[in-house]
């Protein structure tokens, strides 16, 4: 598990107040015009003059100071490197916003949400958090143009309305070659004009990842703790399709819906044939999922055969389907090839048994948070 924040020890006090976002550089020949907006990352305690802030891999006492101070990185952030983007606060709070070497970086647009999913890993807060959008705006401009993929997440990002569209437009303009994956519940797009405006941006690499838990409105609404959500999400899916927006369906599997997976597969094929991809996902035991563990948890071993049936059914019908977040040894052999290494690297872990496993290379392992680690069915393949 990779940490994304920590406190730096002040090696040189900042001359200015306030927190700022910086791209890190390890280049001591960096032209001043760029360096003056960046943070220098030093291995040996030497700091060239022109930078705005400094981070240090060791506990050296630097000769010079910067406007925004120089800080010694805490243990857990020593992995930082050139091109990464961080926010540094005035007392040395460091938050990692973008890691250049990560396969995927997600940006939180808002903590507000109109669903209240039983297993939400990022429980919503009803707070005024417009600053998050401001931050993302700044970061997007700093992200290297050759980045493979970035993501927007929430809360429900689409709740930002016009601001949401602006951020998509910004990503489309600054990072036209970068996949943009947005996690949304789709409900805002029950308003066809909202969907049309999103489509009109015409970002060819934009995909909306939208959860659908059940073909039964009652079950889906229960899982997301919101009456009418199913109808809004499905209507939203149709509007997005009309607007030419690409869609991925995300099905987290848990106690409430595992018996309905093949029916869900049928429903998707008959009604939502236009979606580009369907991902069945193991449950991540964080956030609300921990609190609701009794009503949600079911050992993936116990639903492996219905999962296979649903996956193969969609596959036979020519749909593009994957399995995320489930270790290969908990899947039946015919569907192992649908499994993707999907757990964000910073949440990802393996256990002792995995050391001798032939599938280790293709296996997505576990969420660091997962109770599955004690699963007696984990066996090297």
């Amino acid at each position, binding site marked *: 598990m990779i940490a994304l924040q920590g406190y730096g020890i002040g090696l040189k006090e900042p001359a200015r107040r306030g927190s700022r976002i910086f791209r890190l550089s390890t280049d001591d020949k960096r032209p001043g015009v760029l360096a003056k907006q960046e943070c220098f990352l030093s291995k040996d305690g030497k700091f060239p003059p022109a930078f705005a802030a400094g981070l240090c891999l060791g506990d050296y006492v630097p000769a010079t100071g910067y406007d925004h101070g120089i800080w010694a990185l805490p243990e857990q952030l020593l992995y930082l490197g050139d091109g990464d983007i961080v926010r540094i606060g005035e007392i040395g709070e460091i938050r990692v916003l973008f890691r250049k070497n990560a396969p995927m970086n997600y940006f939180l647009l808002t903590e507000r949400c109109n669903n209240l999913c039983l297993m939400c890993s990022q429980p919503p807060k009803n707070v005024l958090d417009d600053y998050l959008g401001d931050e993302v705006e700044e970061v997007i401009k700093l992200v290297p143009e050759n980045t493979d993929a970035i993501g927007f997440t929430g809360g429900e990002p689409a709740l930002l309305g016009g601001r949401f569209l602006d951020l998509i437009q910004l990503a489309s303009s600054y990072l036209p070659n970068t996949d943009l994956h947005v996690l949304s519940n789709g409900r805002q797009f029950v308003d066809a004009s909202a969907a049309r405006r999103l489509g009109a941006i015409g970002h060819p690499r934009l995909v909306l990842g939208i959860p659908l838990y059940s073909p039964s409105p009652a079950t889906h609404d229960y899982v997301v703790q919101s009456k009418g959500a199913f109808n809004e999400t499905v209507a939203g899916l149709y509007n997005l399709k009309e607007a030419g927006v690409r869609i991925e369906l995300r099905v987290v599997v848990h106690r409430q819906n595992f018996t309905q997976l093949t029916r869900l597969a049928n429903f998707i*094929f008959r009604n939502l044939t236009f979606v580009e991809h369907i991902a069945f996902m193991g449950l991540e035991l964080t956030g609300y999922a921990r609190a609701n563990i009794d009503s949600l948890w079911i050992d993936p071993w116990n639903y492996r055969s219905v999962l296979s049936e649903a996956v193969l059914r969609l596959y036979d*019908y020519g749909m593009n389907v994957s399995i995320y977040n489930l270790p290969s040894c908990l899947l039946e052999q015919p569907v192992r090839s649908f499994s993707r290494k999907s757990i964000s690297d910073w949440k990802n872990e393996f256990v002792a048994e995995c050391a001798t496993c032939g599938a280790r290379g293709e296996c997505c392992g576990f969420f660091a948070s997962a109770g599955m680690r004690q699963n007696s069915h984990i066996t090297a393949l």
Partner: protein
Amino acid sequence: MAGEYTLIPEQAFSDFISGTLHQDTDAYAKLLEAGFLVDDTSALSLDLLAVKLRTKLSNISRFTSLHMIVVTLRCDHSCPYCQVSRQSEDKEKYDISPETAGKAVDLIFRSPSRDIKIEYQGGEPLLNFASVEFITKYAVSLASKHNKNVSFVIATNLSRITDDMLQFCKEFDVSVSTSLDGPKDLHNLNRPMSGADSFERVASGVDLTRRFLGRSSVSALMTTTEASLGRVKDIVDTYVEMGFPGIFLRPLSPYGFAIKTKTYSKYDTRRWLDFYDEGLEYILQLNRLGVDFSEFYSSTILKKMLTPFSPGYVDLMSPAGIGIAAVVYNYNGNIYASDEGRMRAEMGDETFRLGNVHANSYDEIFTSDELLEPLERSFTGSVPMCSDCVYEPYCGAEPVYHHATQGDFVGFKPLSGFCERNMHVIKRLMSIVEGGSADSRTLRRWSIR
């Protein structure tokens, strides 16, 4: 009508009918998901059904896409089941004239369909290849003028195929559909020609065509005759051996030998069903052994049953596919609503003649009573038995068949071989799909072919 189905226990069904089915049952959820039941949680359900229905019927709004042109009636074969071809050297009499061909193509491009498919029919079209070339070039020029897509296929026995013809086909993207009735002895028995080597000619023709146009450029169609009935495995094996991806186990034609009396035709249907069942089982067995091979009559019905799409197969549509999905321009300029309709005409029955390219306008032809009557009368949503039939969404109207066998466009379904055949086939396919074995996966894959 949208083609949804769901299986629930009989008790749940009677509860549903009597309005006492409990909300917490599996059956309730299944009925709701398929759109049979609407409650206050499923406000969207009717919209979803509407979309599905629109998708299923979208081929009607596109109107006629398949246009068959009979370029000659002359043929070098004398197949007993063929009602139309002539053994003659008289080109004047039996070949299409350039004027007729030109008018036919003009009419074809009046069709609102974006994608036009022209199929050359005979007789043997290769005996009048000059017309094939003329029509193809003219159609290509009209297609670019009207901004439409056009594709071509020649229905040929391949006995006269040459390198030059294939070069032409390659240049204009013309694909080939041939006739293959089974193993050599059966094929040559069904399809006599001087030299008695029809099978050898098909085999080498298929090979040559594939060399020029690619592996999947040749399809083959089998005609089921009395002699075929006991030989389904041999027939399938021939197709597998020759590298075809599947076979269409075609129903017995009522237009030839089988047409004697109503009861006789029922008896024939039963014999065909045995043939089909045995063939299907054998093909599934091949699939279990890892051979990817389909049966196309099944896949057509499966598409209607399991997918939101419609196969656009003329015999299994309602409103019927005649005229709407396909239309035939005969060598003499007569226009027929279907290929069977033109065969009836050769037997003296002009019921399905819609007009003539020289005498009638597009509007006259496609709003003629000869087209609208059978379409309207045979619509399965309103005819006795079909309108209450659980299999109606997977079946079709087929006015030509019922006219030929029973003398009217609707027919009395309990005596209809068409009805009996489809009931049997649909039931059988559904039980395999729901059976949950490896075979159900095979059938699901067929449904999207």
